């Protein structure tokens, strides 16, 4: 691309600019921010999964030292202008959405529901006092199983609706009935994709700081601008009087793509008391009151001809949404629909989504959000179909892949995949994994009683949220848009600042955005600072989630930087008495084409832009900055091929991941090291779901996995050293050719892990195990397959 300097910074393995600060403990998280006179908040939370509140006795708590106020839902009724927000309203579909107030009024619907707020002078006092708020409950019947919740006569989470079914949403393309009727083989499987937690290392936290009419909310969030917008509506405060700052954010994984009750409460109390107020979530609270992810039961049907050609796919998804609707709660299961059907040509696809209320906390976006579920079922169904047809599972995939030359490819659902080379990533994977040698080794090991297996996932995902018209009010129905913004400012002495509306929280965009801008400005990336996460600085933006930040936010940076470059060329041309078209940017020099020794550096040009010399025409505006708003015309569709190798101890059921190979294609890499980092984390997240992690509520709706002892996130000791590789297929959607990669590993890996376990256990007759594949479940599955029943 001619607008980019030679020997570009884009594509280099640059160390993260943010790391020295982070690694030396100089990060600045919510709890590091101290404002004099701050009051602390503690939340009294429901111990009941479903109950009517008979009474709340605040007297013992109110009288305690250092307690300033104890406030119930009723006390705060006048402080909130509107209940919590849910923003999906798909045309023609009604979604049952109960009023959800930040502090419960009259009834509680899940363990952890806020019932009162204690405000006081220090953190210890308010937490002590919270224990002295006495709440009397009248328990109501509880339902935790989403399928039981749909049965007649089930306890109702919300009586006014007469049902626990929140909504049904359908999408289809092609003639599914004919496809199923005419197919040679039709296979079906029920799969449970269980509830997980985000588990960010920094729990949530808020600090609301009033100053005159203006309130600044510091929040550990992925979406400062959306948060300000929604808070202004929920609290009736004009946006100009609200500033939201996301300082360093210690991980989000989707769990901080939310507007939470505590954020609303903090701003309301700051306003009511005219004092700074702070709340830092404890880990126990994070487990029960930060939104969960997944939690769906999928009924999948896949149809094919006897030669393996896919003819149709049907999915019915029962999604457990929990007790309330948060920002995107009912939409998350559907979010993966554009890639349901995977990287295969399937002429008929039919999808039905049902949402269900239960007495658990809400689900919403967690890394991958709908797409890990979709990949899980299509990839495992491909294995099952191959088994049924007696075909090699990889041959079956190749037979049905959308071919490289068929892109852009429009699926049965009318979704256009931008670019891909699915055979290419699979070929590359098999260069690294000698499958024949593996099968020989597998045989030998089996003879010695060691059960080794390999599983594959050839995935495609959809990200880069998004073309606003496709997902907005008249499209899918989100009351939002998803363009992104950037403002690039070159300072008089030639360094630069990039402001982005995205809100990275660990992904490394301080570095990758600097690389993108550096090439286009002709400045070293070390001299470019990236600023984000502050609604009072830089342009409006939609935040960081959905693997959108490089392909949407990064493209906005590229566009703004090109605008600055164009102006720099104009100034340079005037200074060198050349035509702007004749100025080229090479190796950090703006030089006259054909006369390489006639050039200006960015420092000289920016100096002239800020302090115009006589030779600069007066019609060139002073200053050197530009803003770009970028709304993509399509999603981007990253893809790849992953293989997982596991050993299963068939006596105990314990699974060990011994090898993991990932070949991903997210277009031209901006910074390969950052991509590897994202892929490593993503795979870890998925191995966590496949083997270890599960949010468990008991039949009474009590949360069983309330700490990291029980919610078993894997550690480094449980993981192999990942092998990563890439192919490069540019996206035609943006000028960088990039596709997102923050979720790819998570989207790809669960089926590879499960398939590997099933492959290992095939000789023992095990055909299916639902995740998480814990030792106990694996042992039970083996016992059942061997003896037709779990052995005592």
């Amino acid at each position: 691309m001619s607008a980019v300097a030679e020997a570009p910074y884009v594509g280099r393995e640059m160390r993260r600019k943010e790391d020295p600060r982070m690694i030396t403990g100089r990060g600045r998280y919510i709890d590091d921010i101290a404002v004099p006179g701050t009051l602390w908040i503690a939340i009294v939370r429901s111990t009941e999964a479903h109950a009517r509140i008979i009474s709340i006795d605040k007297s013992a708590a109110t009288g305690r030292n250092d307690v300033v106020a104890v406030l119930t839902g009723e006390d705060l009724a006048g402080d909130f202008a509107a209940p919590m927000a849910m923003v999906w309203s798909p045309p023609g579909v009604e979604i049952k959405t109960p009023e959800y107030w930040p502090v419960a009024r009259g009834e509680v619907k899940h363990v952890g529901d806020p019932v009162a707020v204690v405000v006081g002078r220090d953190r210890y006092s308010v937490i002590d006092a919270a224990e002295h708020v006495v709440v009397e409950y009248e328990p109501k019947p509880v339902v935790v199983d989403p399928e039981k919740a749909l049965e007649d006569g089930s306890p109702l989470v919300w009586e006014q609706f007469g049902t626990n079914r929140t909504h049904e949403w359908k999408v289809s393309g092609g003639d599914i009935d004919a496809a199923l009727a005419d197919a040679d083989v039709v296979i079906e499987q029920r799969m449970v994709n269980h509830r997980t937690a985000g588990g960010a290392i920094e729990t949530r936290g808020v600090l609301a700081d009033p100053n005159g009419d203006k309130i600044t909310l510091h929040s550990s969030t992925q979406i400062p601008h959306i948060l300000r917008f929604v808070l202004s509506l929920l609290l009736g405060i004009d946006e100009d009087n609200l500033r939201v700052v996301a300082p360093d954010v210690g991980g989000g994984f989707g769990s901080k793509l939310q507007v939470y009750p505590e954020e609303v409460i903090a701003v309301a109390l700051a306003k009511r008391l005219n004092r700074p107020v702070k709340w830092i979530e404890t880990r126990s609270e994070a487990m029960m009151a930060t939104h969960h992810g997944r939690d769906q039961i999928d009924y999948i049907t896949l149809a094919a001809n006897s030669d393996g050609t896919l003819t149709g796919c049907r999915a019915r998804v029962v999604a457990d949404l929990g007790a309330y609707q948060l920002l995107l709660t009912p939409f998350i299961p559907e979010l993966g629909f554009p890639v349901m059907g995977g990287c295969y040509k399937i002429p008929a696809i039919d999808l039905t989504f049902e949402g269900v209320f239960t007495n658990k906390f809400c689900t919403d976006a967690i890394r991958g959000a709908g797409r890990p579920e979709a990949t899980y079922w299509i990839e495992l169904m491909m294995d099952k179909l191959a088994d049924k047809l007696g075909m090699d599972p990889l041959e079956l995939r190749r037979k049905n892949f959308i071919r490289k030359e068929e892109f852009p490819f429009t699926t049965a659902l009318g979704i256009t995949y931008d670019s891909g080379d699915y055979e290419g990533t699979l070929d590359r994977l098999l260069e690294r994994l000698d499958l024949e040698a593996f099968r020989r080794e597998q045989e030998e090991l089996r003879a010695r009683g060691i059960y080794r297996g390999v599983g594959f996932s050839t995935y495609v995902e959809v990200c880069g949220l998004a073309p606003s018209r496709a997902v907005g009010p008249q499209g899918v129905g989100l009351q939002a848009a998803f363009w992104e913004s950037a403002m690039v400012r070159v300072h008089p002495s030639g360094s630069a600042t990039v402001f982005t509306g995205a809100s990275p929280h660990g992904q490394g965009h301080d570095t990758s955005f600097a690389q993108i801008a550096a090439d286009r400005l002709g400045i070293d990336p070390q001299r470019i600072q990236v600023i984000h996460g502050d609604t009072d600085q830089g342009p409006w933006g939609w935040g960081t989630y959905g693997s959108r930040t490089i392909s949407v936010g990064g493209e906005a940076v590229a566009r703004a930087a090109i605008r600055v470059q164009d102006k720099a060329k104009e100034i340079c041309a005037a200074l060198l008495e050349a035509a702007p078209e004749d100025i080229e940017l090479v190796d950090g020099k703006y030089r006259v084409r054909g006369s390489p020794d006639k050039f200006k550096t960015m420092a000289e040009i920016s100096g002239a832009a800020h302090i115009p010399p006589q030779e600069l025409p007066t019609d060139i505006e002073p200053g050197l900055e530009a803003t770009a708003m970028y709304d993509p015309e399509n999603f981007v569709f990253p893809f790849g091929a992953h293989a997982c190798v596991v050993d299963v101890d068939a006596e105990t059921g314990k699974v060990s991941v011994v090898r993991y190979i990932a070949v991903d294609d997210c277009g031209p890499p901006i910074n390969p090291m950052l991509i590897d980092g994202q892929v490593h984390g993503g795979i870890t997240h998925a191995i966590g779901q496949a083997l270890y992690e599960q949010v468990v509520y008991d039949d009474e709706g009590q949360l069983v996995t309330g700490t990291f002892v029980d919610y078993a996130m894997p550690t480094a000791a449980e993981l192999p050293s990942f092998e990563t590789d890439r192919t490069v297929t540019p996206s035609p959607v943006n000028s960088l050719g990039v596709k997102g990669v923050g979720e790819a590993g998570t989207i790809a890996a669960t089926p590879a892990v499960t398939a590997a376990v099933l492959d290992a256990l095939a000789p023992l007759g095990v055909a299916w195990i639902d995740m998480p594949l814990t030792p106990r479940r694996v042992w039970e599955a083996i016992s059942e397959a061997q003896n037709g029943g779990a052995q005592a």
Partner: protein
Amino acid sequence: MIPAQFDYAAPETLEDAIRVLSEGGPEAKLLAGGHSLLPLMKLRLATPSLLVDLRKVPGLHGVHRDNGTWRIGALTPHAELEHTAELGLVARAAGTIADPQVRNRGTIGGSLAHGDPASDLPAVMLVTEASVTLRGPDGQRTVAATELFRDYMETAVGTAEVLTEVRLGAMDAWGFGYQKFNRRSEDWAMVAVSALVKQTGDVCEDVRIGLTNMGSVPLRAHAVEEALRGQAISAESIAQAAEHADEGTDPPADLNASSEYKRHLARVLCRRALAEAAGLK
């Protein structure tokens, strides 16, 4: 994760510690490594009124050998046990506790006084036939490991007593094996089995088997021991003996395991621990 209010004292002699502890009444607690007590306090499952920190008390630290006996100070951290290879089974088991941070802080005295049946060292104390020294306002007494563990997190250590030392015989002539089963390497045992085997030729002269997390207290698997004692050691005899590992146990089900599964694990791990102890592969 904010504990309830408590007072704190860090006495400099054992006598002072005992005095402060007994004056503090039943709600006063000793603090050693803090890696069992503090997590409970953060969750407010424990709310002691006073913590008596042992860190300044001299003479409670270190591993010493007197002829055929090991003397281990109560404040000796797991990491030191782990790195004293001559301790054999004790070193092996200590090395499986959690992660390096926990092993650097957690102490053998704390682990034994706490009496969590999922902890690694209690059952090891049963099979090494260890005893502990307890010092209280009324003087000193010695309690055998078999008498120490009373019930789930309930031990013979009195509210005003300090566990000062652990003694166990040197098991130089014994082969040992330790098999811990957990989901993640840092987790407590779902089940663990410790085995000690004394062989003459291929005959099993004596054998001791300890079970972790198979009940509310650590257990000896006497049925296994009886089945193997005096027998020729072979893969078959070990496998047969190990089938008795869960005899008489009634392990409670939990999030990760049913009772049946734990019993199954005990049998499998027992066989493996015995094979390890007997040097069979």
